């Protein structure tokens, strides 16, 4: 296994015509590291997320993932390498049960006379095991996802991602629609996913969440990295100053951990 950072961005620039959305972004995400990406509206977070997950091609700059320089032609190409953005309500089919969603497109089949027949029992066992390993409790794996809470849905998405060999997950405002208790569980869930060696980039507006879950905080401001600091070595006030441009947190970069 490669020992370098999981994802390394080097001087990523993105122009839309004359507009420079990103003006040279460089930072890295380690294996098992949770990075909170913060920044004001229009700072370039969404553009950056799209570039990482293959939705956009950067105008210039290099991206190294898992030890190899990569340019993803599409989200599917990024996904094949183990990078995925989890959008709420875009990755689950609520009309199908938990097992069906977990195995979406990868069903376990056995062929009888050349006809593939799904092995429901085997699939259910796999899901039960994956859920138990992650400490997620769902009353019945045969319940349609539409009857599950937002937190349970997120758990299914993240467990599925981890189970199928995901390496880096991007979460865009993952708790926007969740209550207090569900958010708390969601944050615990993210730590658990990271503990399996998966890199996590979480985009949020809520400072408290960022500090609760992140190992490192990266602030984007006007298309540049305005701060890249270990969460333990900074404070919400300081981060707010980075977001608004009153302070630059780059000095903390030397002290950042290289992942677990």
């Amino acid at each position: 296994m490669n020992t370098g950072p999981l994802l390394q961005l080097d001087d990523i620039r993105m122009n839309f015509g004359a507009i420079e959305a990103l003006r040279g972004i460089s930072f890295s995400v380690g294996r098992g590291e949770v990075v909170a990406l913060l920044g004001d509206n229009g700072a370039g977070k969404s553009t950056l997320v799209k570039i990482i997950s293959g939705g956009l091609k950067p105008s210039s700059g290099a991206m190294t993932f898992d030890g190899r320089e990569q340019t993803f032609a599409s989200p599917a190409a990024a996904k094949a390498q183990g990078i995925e953005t989890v959008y709420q309500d875009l990755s689950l089919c609520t009309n199908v049960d938990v097992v069906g969603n977990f195995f979406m497109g990868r069903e376990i089949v056995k062929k009888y006379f050349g006809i593939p027949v799904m092995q429901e029992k085997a699939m259910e066992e796999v899901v039960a095991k994956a859920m138990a390993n992650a400490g997620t409790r769902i009353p019945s794996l045969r319940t349609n996802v539409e009857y599950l809470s937002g937190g349970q849905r997120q758990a299914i998405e993240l467990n599925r991602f981890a189970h199928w060999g995901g390496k880096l997950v991007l979460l865009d405002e993952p708790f926007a629609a969740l209550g207090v208790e569900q958010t708390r569980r969601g944050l615990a869930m993210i730590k658990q996913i990271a503990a399996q060696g998966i890199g996590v980039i979480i985009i949020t507006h809520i400072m408290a969440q960022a500090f609760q879950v992140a190992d490192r905080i990266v602030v984007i401001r006007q298309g540049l990295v305005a701060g890249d600091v270990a969460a333990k070595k900074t404070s919400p006030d300081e981060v707010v100053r980075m977001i608004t441009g009153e302070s630059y947190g780059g000095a903390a970069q030397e002290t950042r951990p290289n992942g677990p």
Partner: protein
Amino acid sequence: MTSPRQRAIAEFVLDHLVWFMLAFVLIVFSIFVPNFFQVGIFANIVEQSTFVGVMAIGLAIVIIAGHMDLSVESTAALAAMITGILFCSRGIGIGLTLTPEWLVLPLSLIIALAIGAAIGLLNGFFVIRLKMTAFIVTLASFIWVRGLVVAISGGRSAQDLAPSIRVIGIYQILNVPLIAWIAIACFAVFSFIMTRTPFGRHVTLVGGNSVAAFRAGIKVDRLLFISFILAGAIAGLAGWLLAIRTSGATANLGVGMLFHAFAAVVIGGVSLKGGVGRLPGVYAGVLLLSSINTAINLMGLPAHYTQVIQGMLVLAAVLLDTLKLQIRQRFA
């Protein structure tokens, strides 16, 4: 709060409501409609359900996949008409024969399936490749395919289908003609495909959330193409059976069947939003409609009332769909 057990029972009843309705209707008719309760009547209900039933399978699959196919009736009529023209000996039939004679049976079936599949492919092309709305595309097909039937027949009919094909309509098992057994077999096979094979699962997933299915690596376009082609081919089969039953074809053969099939699909619990529905339920829906038809006939009411009642049933079914959702939310 309700216990999981109560909830499970409520879910079961809601999911299989059409069967309870069918049982209820059959019991009520058996008690109150004179001469209803006899083997011959029940066999007749099953036989009547053949054509609409077969057609409804394809329609249901496309609706579960999140689309619509209004062309199934006309497609069936075209398949019936071409079967009639090729293998009938009177009217506009050209009386094609083969040696050995029985070969016309598989050949006519293959031709009917191919015609249906071709129209399904065309529908699929417009909907999937050109991104047109399935409702409009298949409405257009509904019109032009019927037009084609009238045009190629010149409004005339074909009679006297080759005896080696008709055998299927005459031969009976347990008082029920072979064509009805074919319909039942189709329901069994496609129910299996929809619930047990990856294809069926993917159709359901795509109907529920095609974006999620696509992101999970399911080839959505390919799957939808297959669904449309299947619906067309199944409609072709329905047309073939219809030609056998009537021993030929007329230009207006099967008119109105679309709405029966549509009603059966909705009553059978298939949601028009896509992603929800079971084929056995659809068959129960077809049987329910046939039972009501038969009862109306037996009571000697003018047949026109059938249509009024069926219209109301469709409304009731859609209303039920909405109510079910509310009941579920209370139990969830």
